[in-house]
């Protein structure tokens, strides 16, 4: 360092023989050295003030180092000023070496401080992690005594660290003997380390705590076992969940085992993986467990088994359930049975199909009843047809003798008149004239009138029966019907009767329906005729016809303000020959019977709502168009 001094700027003694440079003019070197010295002094002051407060030890070292540097530099300047240039060289050497060393010390001191700080921080983090780990943690010495325990475990068991440290770990176990045996065996190296097992600890408050214990052996430098490090995981929730699951499993098992229906689960190869008692009994397997892993081929005839297998595979392939399929089966005694079976695909947690769940119900009894009913219906249909035939034949054939009776009664009446005319004079002259006259003028005509009236009545009844029986033979041509047109036509045709009865017919817009035009016409003609027939004479008759669509059906109502129908008659009015006032009103009592018969053939329905003295409402329901 060939530095000149600040003192070169001022007067330098003339005796100074070792002067390096003549002291003439401005000396930049001395100027810079002066700045250096001043800056050093300022730095020292700053450090000194800091020291007075609370500087860390390392900062004090920095201060001391810098103090040495500054003093040395001051000394150096003094020596140079004094002109002791030989000594200056030595001082310069010392200072020159001190400066970079001071720098090295400064950086080292700070970095060492930082490393120490980092270590402290890491240790603090480790302690924090250890204490606040989500699992309990303890260490045991070679005697099984607890040497270290974290806060989580203390909180789990409800003890303080002082209460646990130094005590054998098995004192905190619910099964002390088992725990002691395990710990001592581990410390002796009899049990391989690394096992995880369940253990029950006893809390300070006496409650038990199920835990999962993970064990790791601690070894000294010589490889000998120096202790155990264990992790403790609270599995109370898991245990409860397991218990709940077991309960639910038990409940489900009880439920399916006691169901009368057959319940089973099959895997993709149609092997049973779950089956209830009903399935086991049906298949003759004894217990549900004995069915597991087996297939239908092990129990049923090949033909049936292949069908079941195909159904199951189809459900799995199409991923669509098979609902309520009726299928046959054979019980262990060889009896044929029928089952209504539902098979749905079974999916795993990823939604992949892994099998099927099947539920089947024994419908053998129902099937038998259905078969019987089918037979009965067939018999009934045959009998009905036969009855209709008899009715037709009877009503048709009875008319011939009736015509004879009517004809010959008229003939008899005419003959009586002729005989009476021919014998009138002789009768008058005879003794029995009065009796004979009475017979000819009163008894015989009266008897003949009775015969004719009855014959006409019978003729009328037979005509009605014939019409009724013909209904079953007439073909029904179903078409879309404009009910407004049909009812307009009906009311027009009955205009005379309406006027005669002094009634008013109100016709509203009606919905369309499906039916045979002429037969539907007849239905409403009969109902309207009935309404006109039973109007109340004490008030003007009003017949209101309206309709609406209800549940896919067209419902029409013919409402009148007539005499009404007593409740006890309301169910009988549709029966054959039933009449409310046979003496007062004309008719055979077949109108509503025919209406119902026609509606039966149209999948229709008729019912009445009525209140005596107020009127009736006849409802007709037909398939909507």
């Amino acid at each position, binding site marked *: 360092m*060939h530095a000149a001094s600040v003192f070169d700027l001022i007067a330098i003694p003339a005796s100074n023989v070792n002067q390096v440079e003549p002291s003439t003019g401005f000396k930049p070197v001395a100027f810079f050295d002066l700045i250096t010295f001043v800056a050093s002094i300022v730095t020292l002051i700053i450090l000194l003030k800091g020291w007075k407060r609370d500087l860390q030890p390392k900062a004090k070292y920095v201060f001391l180092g810098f103090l040495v540097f500054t003093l040395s530099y001051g000394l150096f300047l003094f020596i140079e000023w004094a002109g002791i240039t030989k000594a200056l060289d030595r001082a310069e050497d010392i200072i*020159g*070496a001190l400066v*970079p060393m001071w720098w090295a010390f400064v*950086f080292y001191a700070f970095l060492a401080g930082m490393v120490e700080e980092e270590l402290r921080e890491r240790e603090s983090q480790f302690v924090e992690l250890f204490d606040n780990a989500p699992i309990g943690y303890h260490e045991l010495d070679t005697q099984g005594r607890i040497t270290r325990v974290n806060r989580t475990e203390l909180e789990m068991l409800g003890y303080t660290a002082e209460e646990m440290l130094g005590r054998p770990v098995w004192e905190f176990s619910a099964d002390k003997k088992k725990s002691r045996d395990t710990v001592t065996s581990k410390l002796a190296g009899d049990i391989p380390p690394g096992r995880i097992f369940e253990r029950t600890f006893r809390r300070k408050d006496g409650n038990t705590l199920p835990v999962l214990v993970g064990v790791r052996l601690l070894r000294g430098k010589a490889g000998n076992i120096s202790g155990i490090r264990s992790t403790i995981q609270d599995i109370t929730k898991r245990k409860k969940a397991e218990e709940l699951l077991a309960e639910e499993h038990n409940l489900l098992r009880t439920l399916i085992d006691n169901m009368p229906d057959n319940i089973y689960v099959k895997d993709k190869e149609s092997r049973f993986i779950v089956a209830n008692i009903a399935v086991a009994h049906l298949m003759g397997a004894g217990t549900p467990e004995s069915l597991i892993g087996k297939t239908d081929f092990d129990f049923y005839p090949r033909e049936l088994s292949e069908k079941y297998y195909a159904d199951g595979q189809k459900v799995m392939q199409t991923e669509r359930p098979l609902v309520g399929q009726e299928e046959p089966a054979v019980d262990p005694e060889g009896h044929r049975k029928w089952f209504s079976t539902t098979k749905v695909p079974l999916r795993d947690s990823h939604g992949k199909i892994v099998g099927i769940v099947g539920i089947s119900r024994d419908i053998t009894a129902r099937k038998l009843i259905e078969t019987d009913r089918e037979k009965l219906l067939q018999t009934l249909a045959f009998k009905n047809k036969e009855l209709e035939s008899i009715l037709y034949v009877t009503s048709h054939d009875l008319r011939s003798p009736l015509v004879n009776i009517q004809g010959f009664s008229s003939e008899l009446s005419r003959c009586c008149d002729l005989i009476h005319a021919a014998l009138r004079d002789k009768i008058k002259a005879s003794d029995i004239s009065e009796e004979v006259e009475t017979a000819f003028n009163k008894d015989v005509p009266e008897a003949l009138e009775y015969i004719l009236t009855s014959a006409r009545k019978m003729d009328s009844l037979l005509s009605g029966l014939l019409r009724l029986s013909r209904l079953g033979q007439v073909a029904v041509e179903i078409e879309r019907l404009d009910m407004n047109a049909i009812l307009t036509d009906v009311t027009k045709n009955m205009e005379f009767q309406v006027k005669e009865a002094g009634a008013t017919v109100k016709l509203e817009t009606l919905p369309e329906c499906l039916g045979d035009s002429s037969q539907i016409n007849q239905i409403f003609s009969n109902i309207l005729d009935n309404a006109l027939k039973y109007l109340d004479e004490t008030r003007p008759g009003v017949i209101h016809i309206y309709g609406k669509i209800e549940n896919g059906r067209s419902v029409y109502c013919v409402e009148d303000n007539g005499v009404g129908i007593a409740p006890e008659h309301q169910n009988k009015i549709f029966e054959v020959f039933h009449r409310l006032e046979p003496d007062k009103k004309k008719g055979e009592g077949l109108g509503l019977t025919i209406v119902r018969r026609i509606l039966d053939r149209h999948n229709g329905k008729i019912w009445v709502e009525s209140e005596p003295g107020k009127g009736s409402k006849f409802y007709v329901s037909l398939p909507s168009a």
Partner: protein
Amino acid sequence: MEYEIFENEIVMLLIGVGVSIFIQGNRRRLKNLPASNILVTGFCMMLVSWILTVLEGFFWETYLNYLEHAFYAFGTILVAVWCWKVFGSGRETRKEAL
């Protein structure tokens, strides 16, 4: 041309280079120091002055000598500034740094 080499200058320079290597190696950590830029710049200025000290023995003695002292002075000023920023009154980062 006569070259003048001083052993102490070489030693200074070597120690200075060693410190600079040390700084480079611990650059990441040193960044955590408050106002570390000022401190490192101050050091670099002094390092330059040591280099110049050696070089002045070979050529341009006078001018390089000026520069050497100038760098030295600037380096010392920067150290003073750094001390003031770090240890000066009421600096909150002081304790954390040390």
